[in-house]
């Protein structure tokens, strides 16, 4: 009895890898199909601005406080760590530059994206997958409404618009956090800190930050909507839970991968500062 099991196990592993790979590639293909359908539907009338405004408020306004708090404390940590690391080399005066460059180019968009991936990406998936399981998406189709146009487009646009907007707040909060930490805890002059920030804040850096944030916003919405749509009607409550967790995890990974790719393109290829 054992022989076929061993045989199956040794022959089964490549098959298992093949099946998994096929599943992953198929999911990526479907996700990109949804992404391109969304891009097409954005430009097709009718334009439902009321749905967009609703999502802008839901995604933007309701996330503002958490984004500012996250940005502020990240800035504080950066300020404290930067000062401690730079002091032995007697270059603690560069802490403002360290905080400014890190927050503007990297941590501002990244922290905002992480907060929104957990808060909004997961919520989009939970909402859409529940609609799928309860046949509400089928009902939309039967009533002659395109679910991509009605459900995905407003969420995709709102994420793409609100991510850079929130990133601006989170960046200011981060620099503010660094300022508060360094000025109150260490012997750094506040005016000097602000002057250094002003000297190191370039248009190119802000542009990089906004390009990254917009891309992260698109990724969060695309993953959230795809995971919500990809659940089977028979998935039930368990399926909704799995899809929601999957959405948060994939969004976080997508943000990290995108960040690397964008860093390479923007800094190495395009040579932005």
């Amino acid at each position, binding site marked *: 009895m054992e022989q076929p099991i061993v045989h199956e196990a040794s022959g089964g592993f490549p098959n298992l890898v093949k099946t998994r790979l096929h599943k992953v590639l198929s999911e990526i293909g479907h996700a990109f199909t949804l992404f391109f359908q969304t891009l097409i539907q954005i430009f097709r009338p009718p334009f439902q601005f009321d749905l967009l405004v609703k999502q802008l408020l839901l995604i933007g306004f309701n996330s503002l406080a958490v984004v500012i708090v996250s940005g502020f404390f990240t800035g504080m940590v950066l300020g404290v760590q930067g000062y401690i690391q730079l002091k032995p080399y007697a270059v603690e005066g560069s802490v403002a530059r360290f905080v400014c460059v890190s927050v503007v180019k990297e941590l501002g968009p990244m922290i905002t994206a992480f907060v929104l991936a957990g808060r909004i990406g997961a919520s989009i998936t939970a909402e859409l997958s529940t609609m799928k399981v309860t046949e*509400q998406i089928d*009902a939309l*189709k039967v*009533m002659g409404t*395109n679910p991509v146009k*009605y459900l995905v487009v407003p969420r995709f646009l709102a994420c793409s618009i609100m991510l850079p907007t929130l990133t601006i707040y989170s960046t200011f909060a981060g620099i503010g956090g660094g300022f508060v930490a360094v000025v109150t805890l260490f012997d750094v002059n506040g005016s000097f800190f602000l002057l250094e920030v002003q000297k190191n804040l370039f248009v190119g850096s802000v542009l990089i930050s906004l390009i990254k944030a917009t891309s992260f916003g698109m990724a969060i919405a695309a993953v959230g909507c795809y995971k919500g749509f990809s659940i089977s009607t028979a998935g039930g409550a368990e399926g909704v839970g799995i899809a929601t967790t999957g959405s948060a995890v994939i969004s976080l990974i997508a943000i990290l991968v995108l960040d690397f790719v964008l860093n390479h393109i923007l800094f190495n290829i395009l040579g932005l500062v």
Partner: protein
Amino acid sequence: MISIRNVTKTFGGKNVLNGLSLEIPRGETLVIMGQSGCGKSVLLKIITGLISADSGEIWFDGTEISSLNGKKLNTLRRRIGMLFQSAALFDSMTVAENVAFMLDQHTDLDKQEMHKVVDEKLSLVDLAGVQDLRPAELSGGMRKRVGLARALAFDPEVIFYDEPTTGLDPVTCTEINQLIRDLHERLQVTSVVVTHDMHSAFSVATRMAMIHEGRQIAYGSPDEMINIDDPILQQFILFGAPDQILNMENPILKTYLGR
């Protein structure tokens, strides 16, 4: 009105529909019956274009629907209404917003005109004063009624009912059956009811079709169905049909009752 020709559909190697052909005449209430998992709901989803058949044709008033692109299919869908098994109401909207959804999406009616249509459709299903409630605040029977009012909002030519009485108590089942009959008489719409509830089937049908193993095995009026000598159909009728239609002097029923 609707012609289903040699439709096949396979899920995971299992033939759910196996060359099914069926005619749905205009103005009739056709009940499609069959055991759970025999492909009734799949057939409904294929007719409404929610899933595509592996092969075969679905003709809707002279148009073959599998050949339609998204836009044309959506235009055709405005001619149909569907009551889902779970009612499928949008839980983020009020009852009034649910009923007015198609009008809001596909017409230029102003709010006042939409309110008028909503009130009219809700009164058709004997519901009033629930416009501002959310679906979660409604009972199962009320949800089905709102689902039906929503299906009626665009004055459809065909209404599809997917298991309209499933999960309801006997009194509410009777009310829903009465409602389906009333709507058929008042609006003269073509209705397609998918069910395995034989009480409901005999209560609303003007035509019946029995599906077994993905094929149609019987078709006719309720009276004709009782006289069709098919063991699967007769089992269904004997164990499910209401007493008043079971004439035990019927030789065919007697034969199967004896077994």
